[in-house]
């Protein structure tokens, strides 16, 4: 580890709020990656007739558990539960609902308020809010991360080419970007999602069309500066090719600005997905998403647990990411003193 890296890590840790935010966020994200084991309508483990079954991993038919029909087992069916209990036991996840499990056994009409079964209540279709939250958090973060990574790769590449070659390439690319950035993104999304059924990847591609531009100017400026440095000239005098110069000599210097920007881009990506879901142009109907929960909260003002839950989860997640971003910015700040 170079002294510079060590100094940066030190500065990152010195920002205690950001440091702990990172750990908390990683913990939440890590947990949500195991959502199937936390919230599921299939048991983790079934012991029946002297055999072990793992319904989380494999599909079993009713007949495996002494039923009559070869249809997939419904573990929430009381008669099935009774049969298994007689010949073994069932271990349920902490929350016995998946994101799309409908609880038909509600004490009051859906949306029902929080109780001992549905800790955060149910939404207007009788689905457990906590379960949907866990799955929704995961999909939001995954979407945000993927979008961030892809738009950074495209943005850095575009900025590098413009800045390094300059001249006509730079001018025409810049003008193109001005036109492109002027397109009304939201309307395009609405039009496009009326032509195709948007799923995770379609949405990603459509949003990628516009989100790559945020990093271009930053990287381009770094490259414009660095391409006249003596060490770049010396590399050219050695006969090093342009691609190698960009990759080995200039790009590492542009990465500082890029890394500092990443948490904020991630935040922006998550917010965009949430707002699209809120408007109903996002992920396909039925997918767990924070935006959809928000819009349910808006439609069911008599059930405040919907809106409040979505609001707090979003607020906490975005704040954590901003704190992490601040710490990253501190870490790369050469003038930072403790």
């Amino acid at each position, binding site marked *: 580890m170079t002294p510079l890296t060590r100094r940066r890590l030190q500065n990152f840790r010195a920002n205690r709020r950001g440091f702990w935010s990172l750990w908390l966020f990683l913990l939440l994200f890590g947990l949500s990656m195991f959502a199937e084991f936390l919230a599921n309508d299939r048991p983790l483990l079934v012991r029946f007739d002297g055999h072990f079954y793992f319904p989380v991993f494999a599909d079993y038919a009713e007949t495996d558990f002494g039923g009559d029909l070869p249809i997939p087992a419904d573990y929430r069916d009381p008669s099935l539960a009774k049969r298994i209990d007689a010949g073994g036991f069932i271990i349920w996840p902490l929350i016995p609902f998946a994101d799309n499990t409908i609880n038909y056994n509600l004490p009051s009409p859906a949306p029902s308020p929080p109780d001992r079964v549905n800790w955060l209540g149910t939404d207007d279709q009788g689905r457990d809010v906590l379960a949907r939250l866990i799955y929704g958090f995961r999909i939001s973060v995954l979407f945000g991360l993927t979008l961030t990574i892809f738009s950074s790769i495209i943005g850095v590449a575009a900025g590098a080419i413009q800045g390094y070659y300059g001249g006509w390439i730079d001018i025409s690319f810049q003008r193109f970007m001005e036109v492109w950035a002027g397109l009304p993104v939201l309307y395009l999304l609405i039009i496009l999602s009326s032509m195709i059924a948007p799923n995770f990847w379609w949405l990603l591609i459509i949003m990628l069309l516009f989100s790559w531009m945020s990093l271009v100017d930053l990287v381009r400026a770094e490259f414009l500066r660095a391409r006249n440095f003596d060490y770049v000239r*010396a590399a050219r005098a050695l006969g*090093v*090719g342009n691609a190698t110069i960009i990759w080995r000599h200039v790009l590492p210097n542009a990465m500082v600005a890029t890394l500092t920007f990443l948490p904020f881009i991630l935040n922006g990506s998550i917010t965009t997905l949430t707002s699209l879901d809120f408007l109903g142009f996002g992920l396909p109907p039925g997918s767990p998403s924070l935006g959809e929960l928000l819009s349910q909260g808006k439609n069911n003002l008599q059930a405040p647990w919907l809106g409040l839950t979505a609001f707090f989860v979003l607020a906490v997640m975005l704040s954590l990411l901003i704190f992490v971003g601040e710490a990253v910015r501190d870490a790369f700040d050469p003038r930072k003193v403790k």
Partner: protein
Amino acid sequence: MADCLLEVTNLSVSFTSGDTRVDAVKGVSFSLDKGETLALVGESGSGKSVTALSIMQLLHYPMASHGPGSSICFEGIEMVRASEATLRNIRGDRIAIVFQEPMTSLNPLHTIEKQIAETLNLHKGLSGTAARARVLELLRLVGLPEAESRLNAYPHQLSGGQRQRVMIAMALANEPDVLIADEPTTALDVTIQAQILKLLKDLQARFGMALLLITHDLTIVRKMADRVVVMTEGHIVERGKTADIFTAPQHPYTKKLLAAEPKGAPQPADATRKPLMAARDIRVWFPIKTGLLHRTSAHVKAVDGIEMTLRQGETLGVVGESGSGKTTLGLALLRLIDSQGEIIFDGRRIDELGGSALRPLRREMQVVFQDPYSSLSPRLSIAQIIEEGLKVHKLGGSAKERRAEIERLLQEVGIDPSCADRYPHEFSGGQRQRIALARALVLKPRFLLLDEPTSALDMSVQAQMVELLRDLQKRHDIGYLFISHDLRVVKALAHDIMVMKDGKVVESGPAASIFSAPQTAYTRALMAAAFNIEIAEPQAVGT
């Protein structure tokens, strides 16, 4: 002392960054009397600039801190840890400072009138026509030509020397008692340096200011100072009258410093050797585009019809002021920028070759740049930096053999091979320049462009670098194109000399005859400025 103006006692400065603490100045004491010139001499890193900035309390506090017992007393006022209000009253009014780099110490967005008037307004309350008249008076005082029409000029419209004159005018605006000049001429050409130093001396006599001159250049000290304080590694090692120090230095460090001028002469020239690099009527013109359609209306003739020949294993020194086209010529010869005219390398025309045909030739022609800080990629270890050329040209065999070659080369340029995996920022300027040299030498070139390789280095390091270059030339038979404005270094290295001005050759020939009998006024002016810091043939040089 009754007339003691500034008294620095037991000053210590340390910088803290994280857990590391650097003591830059350790218990320094000196005093400055009215009207005298005190020179603070030392190599870079000796703490002389930090001492000067402490006097004005201009360091980055709280990263920097003064040790207990540090005291800077200016006419009975304690400056260390003084309140901001007290300091503001003194800064720019009673004590003024001129920095090294005139480009970055002026605000590029303000006219020079505005910048000078600002300090007048702050301390004297002058504004409007009164301020304007005073600014004009100051600009005339510092000898800025056509002062009236330049009031509304921006810094980039002035030359380096003119900018430094503006800086001095700003510093003098309130007729300070003490003027601190922190390497005031290091960034300037030798001819301009002589003018600026003369100006400082005249102004000092006129206003009776005390001048604290910070420099690493002993020639300037001898010319300017009444007393000298020699600093190294944060300590004062010797002090005394200028004449005494120069005739009878006591401390070994002072002796070393005095002995450190670039010396010696190159190997005798051999006129029978074949030319290595020759150019016929070489031109680099940059178009000036004006109007809506960007039509080329005129050209900046950076290099305008130059003929040159460099024989194998010899050195051609290219001298001239900045802006004379020396570097452009060098880059054109290496085919790093476009040019017109014939370039013949080793009997073969290379000016018509394209990118891929040129690549094998890149092995034979290498370059070392002026600034040792920007010429090494900060994120590669020095072994990787040197290895790059070998990799590009697929030389040096296996990774192990390449490594051995790199270590041998580091040894040759005087760097400990065990440092090969360190990063450039861990080395000093002189060491970095050696690494840059190793990068160029790894391909065993026959032509090396040296673009002011010594001008960013301390005097003693310069001398070592010159030795090394001469030694390498003898051992590997490399032809040098040595670009420099420093005639002392050129004298120690060059067989032939070409004097350039405004893209044209003013004079060229064997070094010995140029140094003994310069033909043109321009060359004579350059030489007077370089060897004696005197102004000769003022009409032949710029301002």
